């Protein structure tokens, strides 16, 4: 309540009126009885002006004191039907012009609207808070300056004492209350501010990035034209960094360009298939299946003819850059690979593990090579085989299991782990 000051109820030309409401009561904090009754409230872009009926004096609350606006839920007793707003306020500034109340322990006031208010009013008020028009277009009050110099404080204090001699507590500049509700509310307010600051900082960086993005994309397009490969911008971005590095060190040789081209080809998918450029859902999945197959074929060959579905999923999405696939679409596309006769197909092991493997890569070959590997070393655990073959443990285990299933290996399940041996039980004698 002590943030209120005496003010002129006449609007300044730069001030925009937000709402005008009658029959408004003002309560200090949780006080049961209103401090002011039956007044008219005018909300503007700069302040809340309150004029009691039959009075020519105005009271105003500068909007910069307003931390946030909260609508008070009706207590449910039906006792008081009037709508209420809770205005959370910040600390009074030193040198604040005098008001009707000199000191208050509450850091919020309640406004009660007997006639109710338009439902957009709280939002409009909050919007005005965010616009902070008082910063861009300050109004200098006709009667009182915005921030009076300290010399004037004494005089004002004197004035206040004349009006409310019993309330003569001079406001100590910079005094901070740490205890009680006020302290807690101040902490909350500080936290709000910190969050707000960090968010705006984060977006500031993003804004810079966005403003640069267009140039970067253009630049990367021109580079990809130069090396005659169509790539998606993200990959080109990486290329750009690479080129910048090279430029420092000297000219790019043809060999390097060729080498880099091959890296990029294994990474990027040019013009990824999307739902938008497919006529139907089934066509989308078919095209997707073809694209995945062609993108992963070489990579699968490189790692031994088999790739777990999650790994394939990651690789495809990395290559697609921004047009990310959902796991469901990926799975659907993989499931129809066999029916499309693609070189890469989906295989589901008995254990439920799903892999993409080359069609040429059949079980017989796996069993044969795995059995030979076991015979050579004497025995293998999945972990050891994974290391030798340079594949995931999961896949190595699947290899051992299908070899066992074919009767070419047998297991030794002990506390030391699961180890596979050549199937001497079947083959010896």
């Amino acid at each position, binding site marked *: 309540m002590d943030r209120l000051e005496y003010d002129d109820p006449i609007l300044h030309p730069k001030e925009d009126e937000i709402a005008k409401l009658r029959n408004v009561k003002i309560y200090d904090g949780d006080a049961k009885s209103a401090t002011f009754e039956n007044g008219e409230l005018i909300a503007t872009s700069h302040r809340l002006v309150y004029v009691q009926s039959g009075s020519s004096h105005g009271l105003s609350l500068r909007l910069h004191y307003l931390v946030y606006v909260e609508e008070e839920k009706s207590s449910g007793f039906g006792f008081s039907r009037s709508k209420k707003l809770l205005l959370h306020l910040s600390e009074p500034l030193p040198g604040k012009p005098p008001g009707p109340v000199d000191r208050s322990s509450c850091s919020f006031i309640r406004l009660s609207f007997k006639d109710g208010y338009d439902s957009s009013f709280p939002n409009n008020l909050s919007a005005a808070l965010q616009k902070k028009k008082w910063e861009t277009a300050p109004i200098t009050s006709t009667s009182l300056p915005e921030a009076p110099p300290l010399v004037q404080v004494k005089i004002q204090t004197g004035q206040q004492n004349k009006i409310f001699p019993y309330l003569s507590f001079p406001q100590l500049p910079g005094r901070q209350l740490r205890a009680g509700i006020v302290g807690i509310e101040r902490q909350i307010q500080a936290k709000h501010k910190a969050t707000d600051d960090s968010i705006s900082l984060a977006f500031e960086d993003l804004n810079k990035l966005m403003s640069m993005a267009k140039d970067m994309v253009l630049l990367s397009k021109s580079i990809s034209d130069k090396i005659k490969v169509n790539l998606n911008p993200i990959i080109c971005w990486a290329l750009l960094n690479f080129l910048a590095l090279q430029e420092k060190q000297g000219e790019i040789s043809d060999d390097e360009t060729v080498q880099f081209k091959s890296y990029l080809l294994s990474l990027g998918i040019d013009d990824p298939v999307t739902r938008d450029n497919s006529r139907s859902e089934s066509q989308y999945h078919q095209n997707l299946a073809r694209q995945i197959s062609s993108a992963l074929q070489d990579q699968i060959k490189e790692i031994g003819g088999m790739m777990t579905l999650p790994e394939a999923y990651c690789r495809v999405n990395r290559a697609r850059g921004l047009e990310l696939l959902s796991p469901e679409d990926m799975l659907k596309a993989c499931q129809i690979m066999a029916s499309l006769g693609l070189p890469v197909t989906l295989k589901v092991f008995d254990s439920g593990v799903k892999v993409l493997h080359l069609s040429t890569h059949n079980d017989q070959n796996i069993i044969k090579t795995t059995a030979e590997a076991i015979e050579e070393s004497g*025995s293998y655990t999945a972990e050891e085989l994974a290391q030798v073959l340079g594949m995931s443990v999961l896949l190595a285990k699947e290899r051992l299991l299908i070899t*066992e*299933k074919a*009767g070419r290996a*047998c*297991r*030794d*399940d*002990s506390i030391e782990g699961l*180890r596979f*041996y050549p*199937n*001497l*039980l*079947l083959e*010896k004698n």
Partner: protein
Amino acid sequence: MQWPWQYDFPPFFTLQPHAETRAKQLSAWRSIVLDYYKHTKESTLDVREAQSSPLFFNSTINRKLSQEGILLILENLQKTGNAEPLDKTKNRWLIFWKSPEEWGKLLYNWAQARGMTNSVCTLFELVSGDDTTDEEFYGLDTEIIIRAIRTLEVERKAEMMMYDDNQGVKFF
């Protein structure tokens, strides 16, 4: 006792999931069990204790067959009459490396050769007497001797006799 090569092969102590391999594994175990019992002249097996017997526990490679595996072998032996559970919980078993009929035949042949027909001898004489030291049934568990004599009873070649605390048999 000379163990076969499988005894030093770690996977031998894990039940193999592959059907054909498991069949081979079980038949190897069968012969090992029977050989072992023949060698030690033991006749009873307790599943709960078997895991600590050298038969199912190879300490050099630190592998033991699971109880489940032991039971599987015993049930397999039971099918061919080489084992018989002594209780309903299938914890204690009798192992026959020769079937009771075969033992009966051996006993009867011995009795005939010794001219013991129509005379009575105690079971103690049969398994620990001076006359039988060279016989295969020397030191055999009385449980098995009794079962062998029961088969002879069916053929009316012998009869169990019980007097005082002694058990005897009369060959015809």
